C-alpha cells in the first residue's frame, strides 16, 4: 500500500475547518487532511498516542496551525514540534486570523516556516488555502523519514 503522507490541520473552529476542507477539495487534496480540534489532539496525533495510538507511523507532510486553540494553543504546539528532534523537520504553517505583530514575531522566533493570515473574503481564503495545500502538500519536497541532520 503506497503511503500518502497526510496534511495535519489543527483548527478548533469547525466552520473554519470545513471551509478549509472545501477549499482543498477543489484540488482533490482534502482526503489527505487530518483535522484536529485543539492543540492537545494535534500533539496526540504527532506522538501517536491517545486516539491516534494506532495510526500509521510517520510524520505529516505539513502542519497547519491555528494560533488560538483551547487546551494547548498554536504557539505551544509549535514550540513542542520545534524542540523535538524527530518532529523538527516538519514544515509548520501558522494559519490564523491575527495580524498582530506580537504573534508574527513569536511564531517566527519559535521556528514557524510560514505565517498566513486568513482572509475574510472567501475567494481569497480559498485561494490561500489551496495554494498552501498545493505548495506544501504537492510541490514542496518533504524531509526524508527519520532524517536527523544532526547525526
Amino acid at each position, binding site marked *: 500500500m503506497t503511503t500518502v503522507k497526510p496534511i495535519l490541520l489543527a483548527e478548533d*473552529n469547525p*466552520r*473554519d475547518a470545513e*471551509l478549509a476542507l*472545501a477549499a482543498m477539495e477543489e484540488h482533490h487534496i482534502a482526503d489527505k487532511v487530518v483535522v484536529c480540534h485543539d492543540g492537545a489532539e494535534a500533539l496526540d496525533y504527532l506522538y501517536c498516542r491517545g486516539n491516534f495510538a494506532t495510526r500509521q507511523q510517520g510524520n505529516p507532510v505539513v502542519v497547519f496551525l491555528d*494560533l*488560538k486553540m483551547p487546551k494547548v494553543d498554536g504557539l505551544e504546539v509549535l514550540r513542542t514540534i520545534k524542540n523535538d528532534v524527530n518532529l523538527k523537520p516538519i514544515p509548520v504553517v501558522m494559519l*490564523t*486570523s*491575527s*495580524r*498582530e505583530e506580537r504573534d508574527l514575531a513569536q511564531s517566527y522566533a519559535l521556528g514557524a516556516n510560514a505565517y498566513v493570515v*486568513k*482572509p*475574510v*473574503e*472567501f*475567494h481569497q*481564503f*480559498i485561494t490561500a488555502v489551496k495554494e498552501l495545500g498545493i505548495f506544501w502538500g504537492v510541490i514542496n519536497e518533504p524531509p526524508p523519514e527519520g532524517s536527523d541532520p544532526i547525526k
Partner: protein
Amino acid sequence: MESVTQERPSTPVPIRSEAVPDSNPEPTPKTSGPMAWFTHWSIERRVLAGFGLVFAGIVVISAVSYRNTAVLIENSRLDTKSHELIQLLGSVGEALDAAESGHRRYLVTGDESYLKSYRTVVEQMPEYLRYLRGLTNEGPEQQARVPTLEQLIARQLGAEAEAIAQRKEHGYEAVRHLALSGAAKKELEGIHRLMTEFDSAEQRVLHARVAQSAGSMKNTIVLLGLGAVLQLILLASVYFLIHHDVTERRRVATELQRRGELLEAANKELEAFSYSVSHDLRAPLRHIDGYAALLSKAAGEALNDKARRYLQTISDSAKQMGQLIDDLLVFSRMGRQDMLRTTINLDQLVKTVLHDLRLDLQGRTISWTMHPLPNVSGDPAMLRQVFLNLISNALKFTATKAETKIEIGSVSRNFGEAEVFVRDNGVGFDMQYVNKLFGVFQRLHRTDEFEGTGIGLANVRRIIHRHGGRTWAEGAPNQGATFYFSLPLARSLR
C-alpha cells in the same frame, strides 16, 4: 446610510479648541495680605531667599564681631601702655626722691658715695622722659602735662646740681640752710603733685576703657547669641520648605506611579480587546462569506437572480465589515505603537507615497502643484500613513471632476513648527460639518458616492496629535477641500 446625521457621543470637539492645551491647568492658591508675593514665589526662590538671609546675617554678625574685637585688642594695647605709664611715673618719682635724699646727705656729710643715686637720675632722666613722651603720645591731656613735668624735673635737678657745686667749692657752711630741707623741695612737691594728677588721670582713662571693653564684649556676646538664634530659625524655615517640597514631590511621584500602573493596566486590557477583535470578530465574517460562497456554488444553478443578489449582498456586507475591523485595528495600533523620532525629508516621503499610489493614478489626468516641504521631526512610517490617507482622499474626492488639481505645500507661521497642507479641487464639504471630519467612522458622503470606512482622517488626526501637532480643514461644497496639519520642525532648522 448617511452617517453625517448620526450623533455619536465620542465625536471630538472642534479641532482648533481641542488642539490648544489649557495654558494654566493648576489652580494657583489665592492669598491676600503682605505675604501674598511670597506665596507666589517658587520653592527654589524661597529656599534661595532663606539662604540669602542666612548669609547676610552671617556677614553682619561677622562685621560687628570683627569691629568689637578690634576695639578690645586696641583697648588692651592702650591698657598695657597705661599700666606702663603708671609704673614709669612710680619709678621716676622714687628715683627723684632717692636723688633728693642722696644729695641732702652729701650736703651734710660731703661723702661722694651719696651722690650715686643723683648721678644715676641725671644720667637716666633723658631716657625716662623719652619713654614718658612715647607713653603719653596718644592722650592729649596727659601729653600737655609732660613739658611741665620736664621743666620741674629740670629745675629740681638744676637746683640740686647748683647746691652740690656750692658744697664742693665752699664747704658745708655754704649749703647749711639747704641741707635740711633740700635744694628743690618746692619743685619735688610740684613733681609729686603733677605725678598724682598724671596717675589719677590715667586711672580714670583706664577705668573708662575697661568699662567700654566690658560693654563691647557684652554686645558681641548678645549679638552672637541673637544671630545664632535667628540663623537657626531661618535654617529651620528653609529646612521646613525643602522638607515640605520633597514630601510633596514624593507624594506626586507616588501618585504618578499609581496612575501609570492604572494606565498600563488599561492599555493591556485594550490590547487584549483589540487582539480579541482581530482574531474572534473576523472568524464569523469569514464564515458568512465562506458559506455564502459555498451556498452559491452548491445551489447557484437553482437560484434566481434575486436570490443570487441577496447572497452577493450578504457576501459584500461581510467583506465591508472585515475592512472596517482591519481599519479599526490600524487605528488602534497607531495609538499604541511606539513612536520613532527622526528627521524626515517630507519631499522624499511624498514621492514614496505617490509611487505607492501609482495604480490609483493610472488613467487619471492630474495637475500636481508641489511646493518644497521642510524637514520635520517624527515617525517616518506614521507620517507616510498621513500623506497616504490625505492624498488618497484627494484622489478619491476628485474622481468625479473632469480635471483634477492637487496642491501640496507648507506655510511656516509659528517658530519651530511647519504647517503642511494638501489641497484638491474635488467635491469639498460644507464647513458646518468640519467638526465631524476627523472623527472615527464619520463620513460626509454616502457610501454609494464614495467608498471608505471613515477611519482615514481619524488616523491622520491621531498620528499628528501623537507628534504634538494639530489638524484642521477648510472647504466648500463643490469647491474643493484643504487639509492642514502642523508638525514640529527638525531640530537642526530651529
